């Protein structure tokens, strides 16, 4: 077993032991059956494991942000989530993908490492500077607009429809000028543009307890819609959203969630204090909801809401 799994399992076991010491249900209810006691311990351990995982993610993200800040200013840009072979090559027939970001837009669409991009949105990608062509063309693409990528895989053509994600990037003050992804391309003069604040850490605490499920065709038929995500549980302090268990979220300020993961990504883009407009399906009737994300929640790493 790897170090990671050992770490996680150790965390799970420790969480269970810790719970036994401080849980009211375990300590003060002598009549509790062993099985309900174990279930309670398991539930608490699960909560702590998830909280620890979120800590890992938040701390890593903060480290990543500081690393990125060393080489970039912030600007909205469409990101595919691929690494390209950018060194000029006389033999390349296109731009070779040398890495695909796990969980990125390209990976979600099915693009794989080793694919060779031969066309992007219908424009041929060819020649010794094929990698550079992809980067420059992507600089002109708006985030959340569809990109058609034609690749060669094992000598056979394949086509992918990818929705790039908006992201904060790029250009390099340290290089004093040229950088891809800027209006005007590599030769444009250096100038700072369109800054936006990074989302505060711990914004997920606002949605603590919320669970969403993908809507399969059969479930969709039951709830009277073919799109959206099903709310299994509303947030613990979810009055601001006015949602109910069993609602189907059809869109969030015009953005249609394709699945639970996508919905979480959309929710992440909101800031505390920001308004959110939801279109939902409740008991087969369409409703519009409006709420404001509360400001009072701000849990950083290691600071979690009390167990359920």
């Amino acid at each position, binding site marked *: 077993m790897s170090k990671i*799994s050992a770490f996680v399992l150790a965390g799970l076991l420790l969480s269970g032991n810790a719970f036994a010491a401080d849980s009211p249900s375990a300590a003060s209810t002598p009549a509790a059956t062993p099985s309900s006691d174990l279930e309670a311990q398991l539930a608490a351990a699960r909560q702590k494991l998830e909280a620890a995982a979120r800590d890992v993610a938040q701390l890593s993200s903060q480290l990543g942000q500081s690393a990125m800040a060393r080489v970039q200013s912030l600007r909205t840009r469409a990101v595919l989530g691929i690494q390209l072979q*950018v060194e000029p090559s006389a033999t390349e027939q296109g731009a070779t993908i040398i890495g695909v970001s796990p969980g990125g837009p390209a990976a979600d669409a099915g693009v794989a490492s080793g694919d060779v991009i031969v066309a992007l949105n219908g424009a041929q990608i060819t020649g010794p500077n094929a990698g550079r062509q992809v980067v420059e063309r992507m600089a002109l693409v708006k985030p959340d607009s569809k990109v058609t990528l034609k690749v060669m895989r094992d000598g056979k053509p394949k086509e992918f429809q990818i929705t790039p994600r908006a992201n904060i*990037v790029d250009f*390099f003050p340290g290089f004093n000028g040229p950088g891809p992804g800027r209006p005007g391309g590599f030769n444009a003069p250096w100038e700072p543009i369109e800054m936006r604040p990074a989302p505060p850490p711990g914004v997920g605490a606002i949605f603590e307890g919320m669970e969403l499920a993908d809507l399969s065709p059969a479930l969709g038929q039951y709830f009277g819609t073919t799109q959206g995500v099903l709310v299994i549980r509303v947030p613990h302090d979810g009055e601001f959203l006015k949602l109910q268990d069993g609602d189907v979220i059809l869109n969030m300020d015009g953005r249609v969630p394709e699945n*639970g993961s996508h*919905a979480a*990504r959309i929710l992440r883009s909101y800031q505390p204090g920001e308004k959110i407009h939801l279109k939902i399906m409740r008991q087969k009737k369409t409703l519009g909801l409006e709420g404001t994300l509360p400001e009072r929640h701000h849990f950083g790493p290691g600071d979690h809401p009390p167990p359920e």
Partner: protein
Amino acid sequence: MHPNLKRLRELPDAEAPPYGYGEFSRRYARRRSRHARAPLRLMAVALAVVVAGWVMKHGLAPGMTDVASVSPAPPSLPRSRSGVAAEGAAALTGNAERWLNAQPRSAIVRVPTQMAVTELEDQIAAMDDQLNAVRLAQPHAQQLAVLQRDRAQLVESLAQVRYAQILVAGVQ
């Protein structure tokens, strides 16, 4: 001639045996090997029943799931004192990335945890985009190495969080 001897000589010739010793040995060996294979046949049948039961319950397609039992642990990265080693960090993440890409997407998500996952995923994607740009701008190799090391750390964290997420889904 003795009458008894005379009677014996008048008896018909004895019939030839149906097969000789060689045939007897062959048949004996075949019977033994048939007995020896019987448990194997039983085990194969039992295995087939178990596999058929599993397939009926879980289906053949590796589609969406929220069950952890079929998911092995993610591979870990070799570490230096300062975390993930800078040298060859990109190569080191290969196993972790393969593991991550092999995991099916969860059909049910807990929003705060999934937000953390998507944040890591988006950062890795942004960093890959950044790496392309840095390579094109021909910066110092040290800058590239720093980005690759930080990326490897993000990938490792993502693998940890996804694994915890899968474990939690498995005990729900």
